[in-house]
C-alpha cells in the first residue's frame, strides 16, 4: 500500500477531481479491509473455544463475515482476538505478538477476562486487569464467554469502525474504542435474523436496481470529463 497511500495523494490532489477520486479509493480500501480480516488464533482460555473455534465451525461460520482465515503466526494476521485471561507472565508475549502483526491491525477483546480481569478481578495475584493495559483495544465484547452471536456483533462493530476509519489523507488515525454489547432483552433468534438481513444487504447486488441507478456511471463520466 506504500505507493497508494504515500505517493498517490500528493500526485492526485492538485488534479481536477483528484480529491473525489481519493475519497472513493478510500472507501474501496476500507471496504476491502473490513471484509477480509485475518484473525490471529490467540486464545489463552475458555473464550478461545467459543470465539475462535466454535465461530469458525459450520454452525456459526465466521466465513460469512470474511474473517475465517485464522492464522497461527502474527505476521500473517491483522486482527487480534484476545480470548481469555492475560496474566503477568503472558503480558510481554502478547505485546510482542501485537507488534509483530501487520499494519493496520485491530484488536477485539472478548470476554470479561480480557476486558477487566472478569472472575479473577479480585484477590488474584497474577491477572492483568484488562488487556487494554498492554495493547490498544478497538472493540470490547462483554460476556463470560460471549455467545458466538455476540462475537459477530463485535466483529460487525469493528467493520463499521474500519469503514469509517483510516483514510489516505489521515493515515494511522484511530477511532475511539467501542463496547459492542448486545441490546438488552434480545433473543438469539432476533440476533440471527438481524445478522441475516445485514449480510443480505451487504453482500447481494440487486442487478435490476443497479442497472437503473445510473448515478455511479454518471459520476465517473463527470470525472473523466474533468480530467
Amino acid at each position, binding site marked *: 500500500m506504500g505507493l497508494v497511500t504515500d505517493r498517490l495523494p500528493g500526485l492526485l490532489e492538485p488534479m481536477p477531481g483528484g480529491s473525489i477520486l481519493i475519497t472513493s479509493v478510500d472507501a474501496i480500501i476500507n471496504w476491502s479491509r473490513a471484509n477480509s480480516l485475518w484473525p490471529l*488464533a*490467540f*486464545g*489463552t*482460555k*475458555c473464550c*478461545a*473455544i*467459543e470465539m475462535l*473455534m*466454535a465461530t*469458525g*465451525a*459450520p*454452525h456459526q461460520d465466521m466465513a460469512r463475515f470474511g474473517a475465517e482465515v485464522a492464522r*497461527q503466526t*502474527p505476521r500473517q494476521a491483522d486482527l487480534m482476538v484476545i480470548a*481469555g*485471561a492475560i*496474566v503477568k*507472565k*503472558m503480558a510481554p*508475549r502478547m505485546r510482542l*505478538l501485537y507488534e509483530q502483526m501487520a499494519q493496520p491491525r485491530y484488536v477485539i477483546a472478548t470476554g470479561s477476562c480480557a476486558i477487566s480481569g472478569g*472472575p*479473577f478481578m*479480585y*484477590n*488474584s*495475584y*497474577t*491477572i492483568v486487569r484488562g488487556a487494554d493495559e498492554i495493547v490498544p483495544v478497538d472493540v470490547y465484547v462483554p460476556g*463470560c*464467554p460471549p*455467545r458466538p452471536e455476540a462475537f459477530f456483533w463485535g466483529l460487525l462493530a469493528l467493520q463499521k469502525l474500519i469503514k469509517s476509519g483510516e483514510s489516505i489523507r489521515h493515515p494511522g488515525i484511530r477511532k475511539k474504542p467501542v463496547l459492542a454489547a448486545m441490546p438488552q432483552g434480545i433473543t438469539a433468534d432476533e440476533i440471527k435474523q438481524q445478522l441475516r438481513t445485514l449480510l443480505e444487504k451487504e453482500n447481494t447486488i440487486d442487478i435490476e436496481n443497479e442497472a437503473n441507478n445510473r448515478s455511479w456511471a454518471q459520476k465517473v463520466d463527470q470525472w473523466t470529463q474533468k480530467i
Partner: protein
Amino acid sequence: MTAIVRTLDEILIAPAHPGRGATQEYFLNMGPQHPIAHGSLRVILLLDGETIRKVIPVPGYVHRGIEKMCEHLNYRQIIHLTDRMDYLSALMNNWAVARTVEKAAGIEINDRIESIRTIMAELQRIQSHALWWGVLGMDLGAFTAFLYSFRDREIIGEIFEETIGARLTMNYIQPGGVMYDITPDFTAKVKKVLAYMKRMVEEYDTLLSGNVILQERLRGVGILSEKRAVSLGCTGPVLRAAGLAYDLRKVEPYGAYEKAQFDVVVGTTGDCWDRYYVRIEEMRQSIRIIEQLIDDIPAGPTMVTKFNTKIKLPVGRYYNHVETARGVLGVFIYSDGGDKPYRLHFRSPSFNNMWAITKIAPGWRIADMIAIQSSLDLVIPDIDR
C-alpha cells in the same frame, strides 16, 4: 532429603560443540503461541537435527492463582472458579468440589440429583471427547474432523443451553444439588441426541480411524508403559490406554454409576493410537450409561439445602475426587471451621498427564511431538490453575 531447584536459565545452557564431523544439539522453543499449545503451554525442546533429545515443559502462562482465590470465597462461590479450570469438563469439576463439600458437611443427596448429575456429566464427556477428536484431526492436518466435531458439539450444547443456560461455564452442580431442574422434554431431547451421537461416533470411526496417514502417525508412536504411567501419576484415558483399568466410576462408584452397566476401556500398548481409540470407545460407553439412566430419573427435589444458607465444614482435612474427561480431579480442603476453606488444593489431571511428554517424546521427531501432545488431550488452564 535435599531438593535442588534449578531455574530455567540454569537448565538452558547451550550444549558445547561436539567437534568436527559431529552434529550439534540446540534448543527450540515451542509456544506459548503455537497451534499445538491449545492455549498457552510453552515447551522447550532440545533437538539433534529433527530428533528430540529432551523436553522441558514450562507451564504458567495462564496461572491465575485459583487456589489462593478460593481462600477468599465461601464454598458455594468456589464452584464458579472450577468451571474455568478444565472448561471442557466444567460440570465434572463442579461435581468434584460439590462432592467434597457434601461429604465433609454430611449433606445427604437424593437419587434424583445423582441421576441428573451423572447424565449431565456423561453428556459432557461425550462432548469433550468429540471436541478432542476434532482437534486431534486438525492438529494432524485433517480439517474435516474439526468441522464434524464442532457440528455435533453444538447439538449437545443445545441441551445444556436449555437446561443450564450456559454453553461453556456451567456453574450447575452445587453443594447440595443442582442449580435448575431439568426441563419437561429433557428426556425426549437427550434420547434424540443419543440416537444421533450413536450414528456419529460410528461416522467418526469410519471417517478418520481407518485413514492410513492417521494410523501411520499414531500407531507405535509415543509409547507410555503402564509402570511409567502410574509413576507419573497419569490418570484417565492416558492411564487406561497404557493398560491399567483404573476408572473411578468403576473402582469407587459415585453418583449413579453403580446403577449402570458399562465397560472400562483399556488399551494394550499405550501408544498414541491406543489413547485415540480409548476415547472413541469411551464415547460409546458414555452413550450406554445415559441410555440406562435416562428412562427412570427418580422423583424428588433437585436441591436439598437452602440456597442462601452458609455451608460450614467442621475442622479437618477432606479429600475427594471424581473422574473427569481427562482423569482424576481431586479436591483437598483444609477447613478451620469457617464457611471458607483455610487452604484448598486441586489435583488436576492435565498437570500430571503433561509430564508424560518428558518421558515419551525423546527419541521421536518434531512431527511426532504434535501427535503425542495432542493425544494426551491437555487443557492448559487446568495445568496452570
